[in-house]
């Protein structure tokens, strides 16, 4: 191993060169091997990476500025576009932030329904990430199989909210409608068929000698460095630290469920892969528990200021008409205050720092986007490794361009 030094600019550079013939390589912004728009200016000596400098912001859409002009319910579609592989988690996290600010208590049934949706989203996100790790190692087969499973999850979203990718799912106070029979039928079919298909995928890769040789030791990070870099989610757990918001600060009744948090040891691509694989199994178990224990009750809180009344009532009762008008025009009053709420997104702690001055829109809204924070460790993780490992490291970190650039 060569010495690593940190230049004054914060870049990592390797002091070792093989033959002194250094090339500059522009990896991205649109490179077929990076899934999303990421640019990295690499200094390479042959295949060995000497330094890396990420440039981000290619799809920056000024969400935080947009949010300062939008009523609270109109911010949900913005959150879709953060981590678009698991939009429902972002939506529900946002709803819970507003509920926390407004002091809304939701029925237990809503909590359980949310848990089901969020765990489905986690499965979909992890499936994409892990199967793409397979693709980047040259194993395309698992990807095609797992995308069929992801498709089934998207069909489940469709039954809940009508949308697939940018879901805009749920409302402040609960859900727009209850889970219908088709949803339950499809979910039961999914729970029955998915484990076998998933095990097949698992057999294709997890103990596959070629795959293991390829990913073990690629892009490692120690637990100490991961905490220094404020890693969260599966990446932090792969490094060996068991921080999970669902356990640490349970929201949406996660304390009612029995599940374990897998942790890795080396923080390399293989550990990140295996941690996600196990999290998928745990998520399945959480969904089953939530279905079994699903309490009776309403699918939304009784908060007429925030929750749209049924359309028929809007035409018949004056009160409903007023609430409908106020919500649609974004004239709902909300208390002034300051709140930080975080959920365990599919790739880490997704936080919402919300300042309200009592007006119709947030005064300030900041998204704590997990991959924005951990992607800055990318140069450190790939310097001194080879280019193909850098590609693998990026896909195994689950960096989502929409969330990175907000």
């Amino acid at each position, binding site marked *: 191993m060569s010495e690593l030094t940190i230049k004054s600019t914060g870049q990592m550079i390797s002091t070792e060169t093989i033959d002194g013939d250094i090339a500059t390589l522009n990896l991205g912004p649109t490179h077929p091997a990076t899934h999303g728009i990421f640019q990295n200016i690499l200094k390479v000596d042959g295949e060995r990476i000497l330094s890396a400098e990420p440039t981000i912001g290619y799809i920056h859409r000024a969400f935080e*500025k947009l949010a300062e002009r939008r009523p609270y319910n109109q911010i949900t579609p913005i959150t879709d576009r953060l981590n678009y592989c698991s939009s429902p988690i972002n939506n529900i996290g946002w709803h819970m932030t507003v509920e926390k600010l407004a002091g809304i208590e939701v029925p237990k049934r809503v909590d359980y329904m949310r848990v089901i949706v969020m765990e489905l989203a986690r499965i979909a996100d992890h499936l994409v990430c892990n199967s793409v790790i397979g693709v980047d190692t040259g194993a395309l087969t698992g990807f095609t199989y797992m995308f069929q499973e992801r498709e089934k999850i998207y069909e489940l979203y469709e039954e809940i909210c009508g949308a697939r990718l940018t879901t805009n799912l749920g409302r402040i106070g609960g859900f727009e409608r209850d889970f219908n029979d088709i949803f339950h039928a499809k979910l039961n079919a999914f729970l029955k068929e998915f484990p076998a298909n998933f095990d097949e995928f698992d057999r294709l890769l997890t103990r596959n000698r070629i795959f293991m040789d390829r990913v073990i030791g690629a892009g490692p990070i120690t637990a100490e460095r991961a905490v220094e870099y*404020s890693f969260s989610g599966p990446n932090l757990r792969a490094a060996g630290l068991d921080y999970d918001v669902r356990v640490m600060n349970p929201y949406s009744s996660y304390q009612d469920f029995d599940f374990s948090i897998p942790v890795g040891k080396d923080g390399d691509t293989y550990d990140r892969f295996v941690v996600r694989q196990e999290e998928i199994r745990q998520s399945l178990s959480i969904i089953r528990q939530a279905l079994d224990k699903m309490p009776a009750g309403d699918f939304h809180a009784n908060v007429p200021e925030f929750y749209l009344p049924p359309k028929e009532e809007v035409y018949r009762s004056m009160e409903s008409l007023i609430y409908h008008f106020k919500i649609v025009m974004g004239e709902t009053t909300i208390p002034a205050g300051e709140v*930080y709420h975080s959920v365990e997104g599919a790739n880490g702690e997704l936080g919402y*720092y919300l300042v309200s001055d009592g007006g*119709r829109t947030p005064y300030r809204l900041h998204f704590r986007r997990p991959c924005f924070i951990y992607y*800055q460790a990318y140069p450190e993780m790939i310097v001194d490794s080879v280019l193909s490992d850098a590609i693998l490291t990026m896909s195994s970190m689950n960096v989502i361009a929409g969330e990175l650039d907000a």
Partner: protein
Amino acid sequence: MNNEILMASILEQTNNTAVCSVDQYDMLNVNIQANQLIDLVESLKNKQGFIYLTDICAAHYPERVGSEFEVIYHLHNLVENQRVRLKVGLSESEINVPTLTGLFAGANWMERETFDFYGVNFVGHPDLRRILNMDDMDYHPLRKQYALEDETRTDKNDTFFGR
């Protein structure tokens, strides 16, 4: 360690100059001066176990003369599961705050983002450049004086709903 104990130790550390309050969500808010930041965060990290920097962001309050800007730090003690929110008020003319990059590697991009959107100068930051906006932008877009939409537009009359 509950908020009261932490508050007492922060007050001792800052010679009772920090303004602490626990909000209704059980989060300890601590208002400090920019020159107290490094010492306080260092002691929180090394002595009180706040090893995890959750987030750095800023907010702009144009009506607060003398401290128009506020830089907000969220720290997390992962062992005791306690969060604390530090706030540093800055005036528009002297918008300098020491960098935390020496204590947390992850502060680097968080501070660059805050600089990008609010123009907060993190003194000692190794690479304080714009991060999400383009390099030749000449203003800091999340400041309140920059309206989201062009205010000279005449084709859109929203006088009734304040939009």
